[in-house]
């Protein structure tokens, strides 16, 4: 999710608020840098603008798990939703991520 003050801003508002755009760009670069450290396989920070935050694509499930589980280190807020591309059906299947004291489970 974007930093709280940048969330749910329309494109019109962002045009008048370069400070927010700057903050969002820095946020995106920071995510990219962190992913470069964490990920062992390819990843992508989605370039499409979303009002709630940034969508991340991982090639490896293990990288995705590492990113989720290491959130306390970065203090980011994650939307607890995970989509997986099914290689057989070519469909994107979406599941909820449930945080537990010992890790995460998928519902």
């Amino acid at each position, binding site marked *: 999710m974007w930093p709280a003050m940048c969330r749910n801003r329309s494109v019109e508002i962002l045009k008048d608020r370069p400070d927010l755009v700057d903050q969002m760009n820095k946020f995106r670069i920071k995510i990219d840098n962190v992913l470069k450290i964490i990920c062992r396989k390819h990843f992508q920070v989605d370039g499409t603008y979303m009002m709630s935050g940034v969508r991340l694509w991982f090639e*490896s*499930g*293990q990288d*995705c*798990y590492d990113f989720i589980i290491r959130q306390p280190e970065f203090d980011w807020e994650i939307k607890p939703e*995970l989509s*997986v591309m*099914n*290689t*057989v*059906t070519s469909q994107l*299947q979406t*599941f909820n991520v449930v945080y537990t004291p010992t890790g995460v*489970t*998928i*519902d």
Partner: protein
Amino acid sequence: MKSAYITVIGSLPIRFDIEQARALGPVIASANSNKSMSFDYATVNTETNLQDMLNSPNFRSADLLVPEKLFKKYVFFDGVTCLPDFPGLKSYDIDPEKCSPQVLSLMLSVYLKQTIVFLLGYDISNPTELTRLKSIMIANPNTKFMYICDPPRTYQLDDLDNGFCDNYIKFQELIDGAR
């Protein structure tokens, strides 16, 4: 180009070089009954077998297809994929979590819409398995099912227009011809 052939390896251990069958098209394994070979897809519906397959080098390049409940548990494992929602599962009275993996492999083969399905090591000694195989064959009249077995041949599938039976020698000849 999409292949017209697909090979399903059932629950019985087989003695055939599956690498050769891959020249014809994709090969689907049923759980870990033949884990010394490499496959394109493998279906599995028990956690014990899945764990065994995840640790078997021969399944490293295979897509391991599991029912949704098991998939949610292993979603972060590379190579584990959720089984598609096969049409007609309820009408066949098949529970993907309880049925045999070979039925799942068979359903996956028809889901992938190949025109000829080769069945190797497919166990039809159990009446339920035979009935399910026949039901799936009847529901897919445009797909030909070639049951490959050692002699003596079985006559169990002869009553169906799209069911055929042949031996491994003929199967080998077909592979050689396709190369």
